[in-house]
């Protein structure tokens, strides 16, 4: 018997009490289907005063409903010596001897099970639009209940009163990283990844079940990395094992020399993805249906439409992507002119100082229709011949974390240089104008999109910025990351300092990480 129970339940726990209790829960407390709800509404009235509300309780020993507020159930209990009653709204059990609600372990167990059953039924019929139903409808069928400590855990917590609480003015979650010898490219990506909220939640709730035999699982190492970051240690962490594992699994990256952070990001995501795939055994074979955490967070779908100029037939392909590489003005590829329909920058409220390129400018250029020219004729299935065409890229499916890569390192045949043009990027980004669906409506003649304020699907918030200082040959990477709502920190290898939002927005920007603001269940 748990300490919150009472001795008086023992007289109840005889014969077929479990079944009886279940029936009571099913019929009168957690009403799953429409019929039971109707029945509850009709039959549950106070037997003494006829009230429907007033905290109705049902006696556990006999069929008697009475309200609590007017003490009718108390009278019944006294006269009949039926000492237990159940609250019909929340299912709590009241003991008249103890004069308090009690929590008996066995009875609670039954209550929980019945509750879950009811939710499942509600979900299936889909009749109600309550919040819980929305959860059930997704097939999850189970409410996410808060954590409750077990008896043992309670003891431990009481004996150890020191707590490490993550408040908004807390350093927990932040930690420096030692530079192992030109490894600032790795450090900055690690900082960005460890501050990706969904990834952090995944690893801190221990969701990775490793199935790799050897010690070389990169996902396990990531998990360990999160433990290190949240350990409360102040000294910087030495990510030597991570480096070793990445070099072992991504040979093309190995070598003591300065490397590109973006390349490292892609390689790291790839290795993580491969190692995660081992978790979902049966899905591993189909690359399009991987459901690992990396895919859930980072993978988006890029739609490429090739339109034949003659018959206007469109052939569409959708490719997965982890990042979006954007050309910049000042590169050898022409940046302007853009397609008509200058939406976007007004939408995103970027400060459009004269001449300063914005991120939305780059995105508009990315999603513009491009004439492929006569030298690149595509075979059109409609015309059955080679015709000129235009190609256009749009976002089909947006990832939860969108990473924008500004192509600052130019490696063309003529020159190799770094493009240092300032590109201004916003704190909040709306990707709606760049979606495939927007393109369709644009083609149908609606140029100015009415922004639906209630459609929050495509709104993103900036949470990490990776910057590069220096030249093409040698330079240094640093990262700005966002820890709580509006606090930014600069991570320069082992040194973490507080930064202002202005510092972040004024920085050059090389890799920009945006996180979806609102997450929907699928």
């Amino acid at each position, binding site marked *: 018997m*748990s*300490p*919150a129970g009472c001795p008086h339940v023992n007289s109840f726990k005889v014969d077929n009490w479990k079944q009886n209790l279940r029936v009571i829960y099913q019929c009168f407390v957690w009403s799953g289907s429409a019929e039971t709800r109707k029945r509850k509404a009709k039959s549950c009235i106070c037997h003494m005063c006829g009230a429907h*509300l007033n*905290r109705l309780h049902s006696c556990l020993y006999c069929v008697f409903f009475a309200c609590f507020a007017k003490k009718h159930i108390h009278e019944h209990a006294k006269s009949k010596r039926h000492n237990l009653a159940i609250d019909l*709204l*929340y299912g*709590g059990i009241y003991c008249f001897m103890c004069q*308090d*609600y*009690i*929590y008996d372990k066995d009875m609670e167990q039954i209550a929980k099970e019945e509750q879950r059953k009811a939710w499942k039924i509600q979900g299936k019929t889909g009749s109600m639009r309550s919040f819980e139903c929305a959860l059930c409808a997704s097939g999850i069928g189970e409410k996410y209940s808060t954590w*409750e*400590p077990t008896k043992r855990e*309670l003891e431990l*917590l*009481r004996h150890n*009163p*020191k*707590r*490490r*609480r993550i*408040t908004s*003015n*807390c*350093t*927990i979650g*932040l930690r*420096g990283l*030692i*530079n*192992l*010898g*030109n*490894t600032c490219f790795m450090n900055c990506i690690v900082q960005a990844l460890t501050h990706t909220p969904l990834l952090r939640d995944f690893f801190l709730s221990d969701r990775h079940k490793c199935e790799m035999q050897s010690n070389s699982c990169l996902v396990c190492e990531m998990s360990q990395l999160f433990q290190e970051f949240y350990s*409360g240690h*102040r*000294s*910087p962490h*030495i990510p*030597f*094992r991570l*480096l*070793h594992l990445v*070099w*072992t699994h991504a*040979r093309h990256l*190995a*070598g*003591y*020399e300065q490397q590109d952070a973006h390349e490292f990001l892609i390689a790291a995501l790839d290795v993580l993805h491969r190692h995660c795939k081992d978790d979902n055994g049966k899905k591993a074979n189909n690359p399009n249906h991987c459901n690992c955490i990396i895919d859930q967070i980072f993978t988006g779908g890029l739609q490429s439409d090739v339109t034949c100029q003659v018959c206007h037939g469109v052939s569409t392909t959708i490719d997965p992507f982890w990042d979006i590489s954007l050309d910049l003005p000042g590169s050898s590829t022409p940046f302007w002119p853009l397609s008509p329909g200058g939406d976007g920058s007004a939408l995103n409220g970027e400060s459009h100082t004269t001449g300063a390129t914005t991120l939305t400018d780059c995105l508009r250029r990315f999603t513009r229709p491009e004439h492929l020219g006569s030298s690149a004729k595509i075979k059109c299935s409609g015309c059955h011949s080679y015709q000129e065409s235009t190609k256009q890229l749009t976002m089909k499916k947006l990832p939860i974390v969108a990473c924008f890569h500004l192509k600052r390192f130019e490696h063309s045949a003529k020159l190799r240089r770094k493009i240092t043009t300032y590109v201004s990027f916003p704190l909040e980004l709306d990707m709606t104008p760049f979606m495939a669906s927007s393109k369709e409506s644009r083609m149908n003649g609606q140029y100015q999109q009415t922004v639906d304020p209630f459609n929050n699907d495509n709104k993103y918030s900036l949470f990490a910025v990776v910057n590069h200082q220096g030249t093409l040959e040698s330079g240094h990477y640093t990262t700005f990351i966002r820890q709580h709502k509006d606090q930014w*920190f600069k991570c320069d290898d*082992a*040194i*973490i*300092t*507080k930064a202002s939002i202005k510092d972040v927005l004024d920085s050059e920007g090389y890799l920009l990480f945006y996180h979806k603001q609102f997450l929907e269940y699928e």
Partner: protein
Amino acid sequence: MKMEDMPLSGPDNTKLEALVHDIYSELVEDACLGLCFEVHRAVKQGYFFLDETDQESMKEFEIVDQPGVDIFGQVYNQWKNKECECPNCKRLIAASRFAPHLEKCLGMGRNSSRIANRRLASNNNMSKSESDQEDNDDLNDNDWSYGAEKKARKRKSDKNQNSPRRSKSIKHKNGELGSSVSSEPYKYNYNTGISYETLGPDEVRSLLTTQCGVISEHTKKMCTRSQRCPQHTDEQRRAVRVFLLGPSAPSLPDADTVVESDSFDIPDGQTLMSRLQWEDSPDISPADSASSKASTNHSDSRRPKKKKRPSLGLNSGGGGSLTGGGGSSSSSSQSNISLSTKKKRPKLSAPSISSIYDDLN
């Protein structure tokens, strides 16, 4: 039917409003009741106050926002001496030099293949004895440079067998261990060590006449370096001989051949001369490695090894400068030598050695 669609006036309106108000207040009350139940349950089950933080902990983790220090309140750039253990070769490496070390250790990167090819080429050209010399390059790695004090710990003889430098030499050595011990006692066999369990007492005895023989804690094998090996003390060597050969065993074989005298005479010059005919000495001194900081240094197989200065300038009285002690004085002590060989330190009589070591220690 939405509220907006209802007529704003009419007799039913007040009733409707009252009803609506009733429903609304009931809903709010029910929600509050639910919250009350939650709190009640938490208090009764005992976990309501559990997440309260103590002030001390809160203070400990507060963010610091001052110039010159990071958010933990620490000064910048104090993390120079961090170390980590290489997952490949298990050595302790300075953290800021880990990446270049790992590159060589794993055999990746631009330099490693060049080095490896050169070694292979030189191995084919040189004789076996000279290839012994090559192996010493392993220890002259620049990574050793800072860790002179820690050599005892770092000189693990069970280095990762997969390390690219190891692979060639082992093949030569293992097969010939037995023979080389007996037939060429003065040939320097530098390999990972000899397992004393497999040897018979005679072999052990003869081994111990030429080699250091101290049994490594890590590998349980005998050190195959010379009797002047800098990694082990004479005390250790004596202990090993006692252990392996019995209490009557001489601590160093030289005690037999060298008459205990105050002065350093070479009683048996011939024996000593032959003993000094080692091809090369395992002159691995921290001083050597300290000089080889450049990464390609060890790849140059033709680089003449830094020989320890023979420490034969011994005074009478059993003392005398001895470069063998730790090897750190190898370059410093220049002593004239009565023997004309350019190499080895001769073996000294046991008593004098022990006292010398004591001095140096």
